[in-house]
């Protein structure tokens, strides 16, 4: 579903991403770990088509993102580190707006179902988003992924700043989407959540993917050890 081949991004002499080749299939959760500046967010931005690659290709559902940027966005949902919504609209209105932009038409009841499924309390649906916490906004983001019937989910440090309960709820939602066959690429610093939800883990350093393995091949302690060894060498 999500494929990159020899993907590189350079800013002048600085190489933000160096020849990244990864593949995230339906039902996979691929977690990219790495220190700040390792190239995780650059990878996500390249999949989103926000920036153009210097070399290589990015494909979503077999479509080249550089060529079919708008079309590939029909298949994806994106949750950034700090998902922001329109503060003067309610959660329900925000969901209706973004779902509409994705050319999805739903009744109010259907939208409410998506919000419920994403775990947003019913009393919050009609509240203005300016009163939402970060976790509540992330849930609207998940509801949008459900409404878009996204085949792939791109997450850029989505649990950063969430309290453990909200973070756990978010992990459960990812697992729910995974069970529906959604391919997820998540950039994160959170080793615990990565181990909890990932099917594959990659460790990045200075723009390169230096380690890649299946999540069930390592324990959390081993993951931490490998991670620290990788980024400190």
């Amino acid at each position: 579903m999500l494929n990159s081949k020899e993907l590189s991004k350079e800013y002048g002499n600085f190489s933000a991403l160096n020849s990244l080749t990864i593949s995230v299939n339906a039902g996979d959760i691929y977690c990219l770990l790495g220190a700040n500046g390792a190239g995780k967010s650059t990878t996500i931005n390249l999949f989103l088509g926000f920036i153009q690659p210097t070399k290589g290709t990015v494909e979503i559902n077999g479509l080249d993102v550089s060529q079919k940027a708008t079309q590939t966005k029909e298949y994806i949902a994106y949750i950034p580190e700090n998902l922001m919504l329109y503060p003067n609209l309610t959660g329900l209105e925000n969901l209706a707006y973004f779902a509409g932009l994705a050319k999805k038409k739903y009744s109010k009841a259907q939208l409410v179902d998506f919000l419920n499924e994403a775990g947003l309390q019913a009393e919050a649906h009609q509240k203005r988003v300016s009163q939402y916490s970060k976790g509540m906004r992330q849930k609207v983001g998940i509801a949008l992924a459900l409404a878009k019937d996204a085949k792939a989910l791109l997450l850029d440090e989505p649990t950063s700043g969430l309290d453990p309960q909200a973070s756990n709820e978010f992990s459960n939602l990812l697992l729910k989407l995974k069970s529906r066959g959604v391919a997820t690429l998540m950039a994160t610093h959170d080793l615990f959540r990565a181990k909890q939800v990932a099917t594959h883990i990659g460790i990045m350093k200075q723009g390169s993917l230096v380690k890649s393995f299946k999540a069930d091949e390592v324990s959390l302690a081993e993951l931490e050890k490998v991670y620290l060894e990788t980024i400190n060498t």
Partner: protein
Amino acid sequence: MLHILRFELKQLLATRLFWWVGAILITSISFAVYNGKIAIEEKLHTIKELKEEQEQRYSNFKLDFDSLEAGTKKAQLSWFQDPRQALTVGMFRNSGKYAILEPKPLSLISTGQSDVEIFYTKVSYLSDIFQANNVNFENPFNIAAGQFDFAFVLIFLFPLLIIALTYNILSGEREQGTLPLLMSQPVQIRYWLMAKLTFRFSFLLLAVLLSLCLAFTVFQVDFLSTDFFKLLFAIGIYTFFWFALSFYINLLGKSSAMNTLLLLASWLLFVFLIPSMANMLATSIYPMPSRVELVNAKRQAEQDSERNKQAILTKFYQAHPSLVQKSEKEQTGQDFYREYVTLHEVIDEQVNKVQQSFDNQLEAQQSFANNFQYLSPAILMQNALNEIAETDSKYYKVFQKNAHAYQQNWKAFFKPKFINDEKITIKEFGQIPVYQSSISVDSNFSIQLLSLTLFSLLFTVLVFLQKSKNVNIISA
């Protein structure tokens, strides 16, 4: 598109700015229309009084005429009050008819030159029709500050409201953090931005048009005419220009603060700097002719005619052998005025030459300044509105020309009568020339609208060039 428009409405309704803009538009347009209406009504009131006064004078003349013809009033009237005398009804203080430039119902949209130019003048044989009769002075402060008319609201204020509603459409998304989520949807940002601008364009245009129609209806302005539709068209294009400019500046991908700065700088340039520069250059290259020079020329002409009085009169009597020049003691009133008019015509001839060079210089100055209209949509719009309102200086020039032509007709009618000392018949009394009020002017409205459209298209083209040059600027 419909989906974006629906949510745009929802979002705008939830913001205070939307309501403020609506309220400012309705209030300012209503006030401007009210101001214009008051000014027009004052003029119409003056015109009504002038017509009544003229009607009264000539009715009195007619009554006296009839009485004298019937032989019933002879004893009470001296010769200079006798309406059968050409001097009485054609030259003396109580004579003369008005040349009037009637305002149109839509004249209220733009004051134009109407606060400095004369809209009526009393024409008789010797009246100095655009000098001595200038009793229609406007408060100089009002002229300096400009009138609060619809043109002011549209040209100066309206672009600021457009800027307030559009400066941060894209940058605001970036600054409030919603841009990444927006950009991850399968919609082109350019298309999304265009939809939002289209909505705001429609809202503002509709608000202006509704406010205008409402104000016209409340203040009982007879506005449904071809000119009104020309006005709507001009408003639409002017609004489109400011939106095209804003679209382009939004696409540059700068911050909201920078967008505001760029848009306000454009406003300042088009609305103030270019018009001011045009005026400054025009007055430097074609300096205003001296009024003192004109007055001195007139005095000089009077002195010359006094010096050459005998030669002038000799020439006159040679041309009219049936008349005999009499000494001052022997002269009747008619004889005195015949010579007075003869001398006056010589003075007029000389003064007119100076007046002509004075007018030519003014015209050159205005013509030079007019060329600058093609550098500023604001000047183009002002001129287009002046055309619709018929308050442009060229309407007043034509009016002056018509009034002068009317005076020539007047002179041609009365001159043979008092030169030959003939009395006016009752039939001729009914044929005293009347001012024909039609004003025919070559309209530049189409050129002005075309130029405005080109301005708008220039920025529309820049919008498309911006796309091909800098695709990623939005996400940078």
